[in-house]
């Protein structure tokens, strides 16, 4: 019996030390929302229940292994059932589980209450980036991986936020209830930020809901959590939580920028402007499949020297605008602006030795989009 006590004491001592060991990147983050704290405490309660049961069960087991060794001449007893003991060890776990289910149910109900949101943000997963649209605010943009290719290939030194940085983060106001509406343009993705305790699948044909009320300003990083193809590891989520005032300023800036972008579609763009803008857009959106050198990879066709594309500019524009159904080529009608589509088409027709000399003006694309939209 003394051995059993030693075992249990040892187990409890190591259990008491666990929080120290679990601090700092070894455990689930507590997070910065009321819900994330609730979830964290559920996690810790069930963890400690498991630890205690483990100490008892493994304690009894190792005690038996030590105490009743055949080599020490132990003689086996003959009992092989005991109804009341069996009833007890069926009933006690049941009671523990009921005790656990009560707070879990309360938290879950809270998580599902997406009513009365102050702000609605549409989150759309695409292979392999996130698109954010502030509903009713005329602000929408795409958020791409910000880590340079050299760091991934090992030719450059990896930065502090390697693979967890984006070009444009999702900016949200603190203290406001933000409803997230999630969907996808292609395969299933999952939008996850551990500090916000929000993970929700983005599924084509469905709009899922979740919500978040961030309490502290800061930058919170996460990733796509559902396997979505080759660059699944390379579509991070970055949320920048700012004070309401700062958020309003930011939103106004974005709205102005969007207007400028729209009006710039009307003016004449020079070849150099289109090529510069096209290279930028191509790198952010197209290069993950068709590669930076336009050579394609696997099922993704090469664009360099692609005759079908070079022969017919309308065919080329149609592919970019409408995608190719049944393949990974998405429609960029809603993702890219008229300027970006014009620039990227021009770029693809003139980069990597394609040298067709063709260019297309944003105004022509805008016209086509308006026609097709009707």
């Amino acid at each position, binding site marked *: 019996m003394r051995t059993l006590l030693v075992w249990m004491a040892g187990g409890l001592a190591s259990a008491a030390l666990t929080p120290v060991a679990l601090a700092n990147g070894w455990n689930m983050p507590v997070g910065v929302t009321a819900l994330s704290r609730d979830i964290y405490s559920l996690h810790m309660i069930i963890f400690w229940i498991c630890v205690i049961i483990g100490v008892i069960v493994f304690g009894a087991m190792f005690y038996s292994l030590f105490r009743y060794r055949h080599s020490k001449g132990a*003689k086996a007893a003959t009992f092989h059932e005991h109804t009341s003991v*069996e009833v007890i060890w069926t009933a006690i776990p049941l009671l523990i589980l009921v005790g656990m289910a009560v707070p879990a149910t309360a938290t879950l109900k809270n998580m*599902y209450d997406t009513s009365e949101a102050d702000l609605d943000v549409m989150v759309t997963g695409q292979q392999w980036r996130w698109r954010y649209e502030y509903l009713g605010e005329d602000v929408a943009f795409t958020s791409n991986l910000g880590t340079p290719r050299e*760091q991934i290939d090992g030719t450059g030194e990896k930065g502090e936020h390697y693979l967890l940085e984006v070009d444009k983060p999702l900016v949200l106001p603190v203290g406001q209830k933000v409803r997230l509406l999630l969907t996808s343009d292609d395969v299933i993705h999952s939008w996850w930020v551990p500090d916000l305790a929000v993970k*929700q699948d983005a*599924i084509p044909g469905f709009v899922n809901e979740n919500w978040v009320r961030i309490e502290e300003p800061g930058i919170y990083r996460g990733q796509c*959590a559902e396997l979505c193809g080759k660059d699944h590891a390379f579509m991070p989520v970055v949320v920048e939580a700012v004070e309401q005032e700062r958020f309003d300023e930011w939103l106004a800036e974005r709205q102005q920028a969007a207007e400028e972008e729209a009006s710039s579609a009307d003016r004449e763009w020079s070849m150099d402007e289109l090529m510069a803008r096209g290279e930028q857009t191509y790198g952010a959106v197209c290069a993950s499949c068709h590669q930076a050198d336009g050579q394609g990879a696997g099922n993704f066709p090469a664009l360099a020297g692609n005759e079908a594309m070079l022969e017919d500019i309308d065919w080329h524009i149609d592919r970019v605008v409408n995608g190719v159904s049944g393949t990974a080529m998405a429609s960029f009608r809603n993702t890219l602006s008229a300027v970006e589509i014009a620039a990227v088409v021009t770029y693809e027709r003139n980069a990597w030795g394609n040298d067709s000399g063709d260019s297309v003006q944003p105004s022509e694309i805008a016209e086509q989009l308006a026609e097709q939209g009707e």
Partner: protein
Amino acid sequence: MAFHLPPKPTPQHSTATAGGVAEPGHAKPHWLMRWLLTTNHKEIGSLYLIFSLTMFFIGGIFALVVRAELFQPGLQLVRPEFFNQMTTMHGLIMVFGAIMPAFVGLANWMVPLQIGAPDMALPRLNNFSFWLLPVAFGLLLSTLLMPGGGPNFGWTFYAPLSTTYAPPSTTFFILSLHIAGISSILGAINIIATILNLRAPGMRMMDMPLFVWTWLITAFLLIAVMPVLAGVITMMLMDINFGTSFFNAAGGGDPVLFQHLFWFFGHPEVYIMILPAFGIVSAIIPTFSRKRLFGYASMVYATAAIALLSFLVWAHHMFVVGLPLVAELFFMYTTMLIAVPTGVKIFNWVATMFRGSISFEPPMLFALAFVVQFTVGGFSGLMLAISPADFQYHDTYFVVAHFHYVLVPGALFAILAGAYYWLPKWTGHYPHLRLSQWHFWLSVIGVNLTFFPMHFSGLAGMPRRIPDYALQFADFNMAASLGAFLFGASQLLFVLVIIKCVRGGEKAPAKAWEGAEDLEWSVPSPAPLHTFETPPEFHPDRH
């Protein structure tokens, strides 16, 4: 109640080799034809076991490719496209090619011996269901060489990634899974027919060893869910090749339907991979505790309860797909409930050891490690059942840690325990003691070094199925990769143990282990090709 072959359909000499045995007066068949045509349960059992060991090493090599790439952050060895093929093939091969056939192999060998039957009830079907497997997995492996590569969408092959966005080889993947599924169904039918019809006179259901009981229940699970898998992959086949839109949202289909169907198969499937393990451990622990199994009846009921509950919990794999609140609650409660019968089993094993007379031969070492490590996997399973917390755990390395604890230090260790336990019966020799102990300890260290750090990396925020990761996960991954290579290398010792054991070693008597009680220990070691041609006397002294 002797066992009779059914009347032969033709009077010709068509059965000269069908028995797989060279009987006096028959020409000895060529060895290849002998193994191709054998209908002997022991030979087919050995074929299954050798096949699953081969698949275990192939799937293991795929896992090591994955772990090598994950040794450090950054892309060093393979491209993401190939990495995804490796994770997918590793999962498919291990689940369908290694763990399941290993249990079927053990059932083939041991179920007839444990119930006093001369063979399986349907010996030719038995031969057919084995030989389907090399076809299925040859086809599956060949997809790696096809243009566009092999399956790259995870072993759960969620649509539309596995339909609209899949490589062209997916149709071959579907065909191979169909063949493997037919093999499983036929095997299950055979096991049920054997257990229900061929028990020794006097052996009631509640006298059967637990390995037989757990396999009987497993076989019913297989028959219930394999057709669902066949259905879902057929729908994929139609979506890919015949223009239907079961899972294509653009055509009015439903990608979430895929997940419901898959997991209605998939959750019972994970119990298919663990229930026979319970049976093996329930044979080994009493033997080396020299004491009867505690709570035999409650073990049977708990197994049945787990099997029934397995049909009611599938959507706990889908807590973040946007289920309605009531569904979320229902599946959380039912999932938590599974902890009760599972707990009963663990308590029963511990109570069996309590006041026993315990020794630590290799099978017992593996069985004890199973109990501890499977329970660790059970604990993380209980945590995952808490739906709100699952929003954080889901699709992270915490889940990877959980199911590997259940399947590797769980199911696989039980298979190894079973192999060490029955090797004297199969070969007539004891496995080499020192080598077995080395194999055990290196495996325990390797497996825990591999999978324990994954709990931490998952909680800290590392998603699963990624070829590259953020810098804060680097230490955990390095430890896991080192552990994986240690574990992989130490399995070569197991091969060495088997080879040595087949060739020679300390001779084993009929009753190879002092405390062993079941019927298989009443036939000589090694078990002759034909056993129990006359049914044994069975005295139910246990109840």
